[in-house]
């Protein structure tokens, strides 16, 4: 079909998206499918054609098939009631989000650059601290961060790879440019949903998928295994395990999924035994040595002897074994200091400092309330800003200026003045929108993008991502804890066009 199919706004209902009662009208946000003026973007044409030809009933049917398959596979979280437990699936949308090759090339280069710089930063912070001596990043900001681990100072980390698995949150702003909203170097999750969504979208739109030349994501588990093994280079065939907090953790499905696809045992803290600063797992034929632990347990809970004493999720003595160099933990404890919300503001400087390059992917403009001049700007413009507590995540300790009442803003301003070091502020950004099937209609919903980057001996960006969706109309919050869903992400090869 022609690539410049133009649809008048009023005709969208009839010709392009027969399912919408009110036309599919993107707001002022950038829309992934429809360009301003109403034309379907070329890389969405194949998919859009198919959607139009399937019709509402068939799409609804496919959505139900998809949900049923997620339920069967156990891609669920459990809601515990008084005397019963109900399984709910993570809401998943039928339509893939499509990213053309040249856009992806920039994302890939930008993420690679960013993770290399952040790992160099971590190696420096836990080493000679040159960047602090040179005054590029304020010393107290790093050493005072709750995620900084003094215990990590001067420990050997193979390849300088502190963050082996990184999930960065990207958003596309009103101008259509991808920017980094947040780095996640602790225990990023969501990669199993990326893989499950791919499986689902391939079955939902097999023809479009085949024609579109979508880059595969299925190699993630073996690339992850290779990354983990590369961290124990003194062993010829290191024993890798996945450490999970257990079956009640909300990401348990993912832990089991990755363990299964890597062929690595899924262990809990109670399966591990420390002896002579070495780590063993309790097997049916006695104790077996463990070399690499892909831990999906937060720093605080890894080892009650070194970190939180009340934790029963990790294993006592694990950190000593790590310090002795007898086991590798991925990601390294303390890697989270590089995704601290205040350190974030310095990432462009960090990239320049270590790599001598300008950042390929920009940051969102960030005001550090610790700086008096920036604090006064923030206080004067609270109604246009999002203010976040540095140490909090998941939407807690946050003020969304435009949606808050005058009273809430006033109360927050007091908190800000009392403890400015604990806050940053960013302008409210309209995330881009993508078409979603909502109650039988196709409507734009705000989305972000979480690609996954592996770093061991080398850095690898998986050509795909988890696209998170804010399911409520107009909402900008994509966190799954706040009612967000997800959809598959198709990264096209050069010649691809969906």
């Amino acid at each position, binding site marked *: 079909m022609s690539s410049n199919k133009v649809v008048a706004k009023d005709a969208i209902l009839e010709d392009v998206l027969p399912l919408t009662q009110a036309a599919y009208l993107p707001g002022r946000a950038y829309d992934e499918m429809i360009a301003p003026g109403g034309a379907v973007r070329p890389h969405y044409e194949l998919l859009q054609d198919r959607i139009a030809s399937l019709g509402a009933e068939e799409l609804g049917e496919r959505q139900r098939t998809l949900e049923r398959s997620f339920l069967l*596979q*156990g891609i669920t979280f459990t809601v515990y009631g008084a005397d019963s437990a109900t399984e709910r699936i993570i809401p998943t949308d039928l339509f893939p989000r499509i990213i053309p090759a040249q856009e992806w090339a920039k994302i890939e280069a930008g993420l690679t650059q960013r993770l290399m710089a952040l790992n160099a930063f971590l190696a420096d912070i836990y080493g000679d601290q040159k960047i602090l001596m040179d005054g590029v990043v304020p010393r107290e900001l790093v050493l005072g961060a709750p995620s900084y681990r003094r215990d990590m100072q001067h420990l050997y980390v193979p390849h300088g790879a502190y963050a082996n698995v990184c999930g960065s949150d990207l958003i596309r702003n009103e101008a259509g440019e991808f920017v980094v909203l947040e780095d996640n170097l602790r225990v990023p999750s969501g990669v199993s949903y990326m893989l499950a969504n791919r499986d689902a979208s391939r079955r939902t739109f097999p023809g479009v998928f085949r024609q579109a030349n979508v880059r595969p994501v299925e190699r993630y588990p073996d690339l992850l295994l290779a990354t983990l093994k590369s961290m124990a280079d003194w062993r010829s065939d290191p024993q890798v395990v996945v450490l999970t907090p257990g079956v009640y953790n909300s990401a348990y499905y993912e832990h089991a999924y990755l363990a*299964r696809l890597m062929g690595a*045992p*899924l262990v809990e803290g109670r*399966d591990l*035994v420390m*002896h002579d600063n070495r780590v063993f797992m309790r*097997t049916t034929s*006695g104790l077996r040595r463990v070399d690499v632990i892909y831990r999906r347990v937060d720093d605080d809970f890894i080892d009650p002897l070194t970190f939180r004493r009340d934790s029963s999720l990790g294993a006592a003595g694990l950190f000593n074994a790590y310090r002795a160099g007898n086991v590798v933990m991925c990601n390294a404890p303390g890697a989270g200091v590089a995704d601290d919300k205040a350190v974030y503001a310095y990432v462009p400087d960090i990239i320049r400092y270590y790599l001598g390059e300008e950042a390929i992917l920009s940051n969102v403009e960030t005001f550090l309330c610790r700086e008096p001049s920036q604090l006064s700007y923030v206080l004067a413009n609270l109604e246009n800003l999002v203010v976040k507590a540095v140490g909090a995540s998941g939407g807690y300790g946050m003020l969304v200026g435009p949606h808050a009442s005058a009273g809430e803003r006033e109360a927050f301003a007091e908190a800000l003045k009392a403890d400015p070091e604990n806050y940053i502020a960013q302008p409210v950004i309209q995330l881009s929108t993508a078409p979603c099937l909502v109650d039988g209609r196709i409507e734009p919903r705000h989305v972000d993008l979480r690609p996954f980057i592996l770093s061991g001996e080398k850095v690898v960006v998986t050509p795909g991502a988890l696209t998170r969706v804010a399911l409520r109309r107009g909402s900008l919050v994509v966190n799954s804890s706040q009612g967000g869903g997800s959809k598959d992400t198709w990264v096209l090869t050069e010649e691809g066009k969906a």
Partner: protein
Amino acid sequence: MMLARVADSLYWIGRYIERAEHVSRLSAVMLNATLDSTQGAVQTGRIGLAALGEPDSGRANQTYEAAHDLALDRTDSGSVVVSLARARENARQVRDQISTETWERLNLLYLRTTGVGVETAFDDDPPGFLNEIIADLHLFKGAADTTLSHGEGWRFLLLGVHIERAQLIARLLEVCFSTGKTPAVSEPIALMSVLRMACALEPYLRVYTADINPRYILEFLLFDEDFPRSIRFCTARLQDLLSQLVRDAGASRSDALRLAGRLDARLKYADIEEVEATGAGALLAAVAAECASIHEAIYETFVAYPLELSLPA
């Protein structure tokens, strides 16, 4: 080599699915029997309830209520729904060790027996509902058989199935045939129900023809070498599985294997005349007690072994 916790979970999956199947089958047989209002029907109800641990047969003529609770009562730790939920909970804990096909069969069963429409589905056709669970459990076992590696994990699963089965059949026979000189069950209809409860009617007929009497039933369910629900069949499997598992683990000796071998030999070289002379009760009680000891020994050998013995020098 596998994690001790994983072996333990696989073993319990085996036990719970076998229990769920047995309880479903007993309930279905009871419900079918009560369609007739004969003496045999009352006896069948009494046997079924006693075999499932309700010796006061006050509910023997309320089979519908009894079957409903056995299937769906979440507060009864022996009910089908609880067994399935526990099997699935264990499967979730070892999700990385079992195939997708196997997991999905079990998950489907769990979702169906805990879903919103389950009460209506049971009320519509109680025996049909129970038979469907049994058929789904067979699909689970089939999926496991054809998609899991028949290695260590598989052996722990089967170990659970056969130890549970031996105990359940022993209990059923105890209820029917161990009380004094006159067996508790004499009525032909009830005797056929006993065979149905062990899923043994058709295989029995092929061996003994339609000559249904307590002695043959006892002989068949105790000693038959080929029928998968005879106790002898189960103990032979236990011994096989344990000798392979002990070899896999590189252990030189194990109480579990010794006990299983001894129990198997006892059944192998016993005969029905001797059992009849002394009463079946003693043998059946011994089977139950030995199975309990084997269970303990499995745990000590493979799961909760003392660490001092296995630390590297």
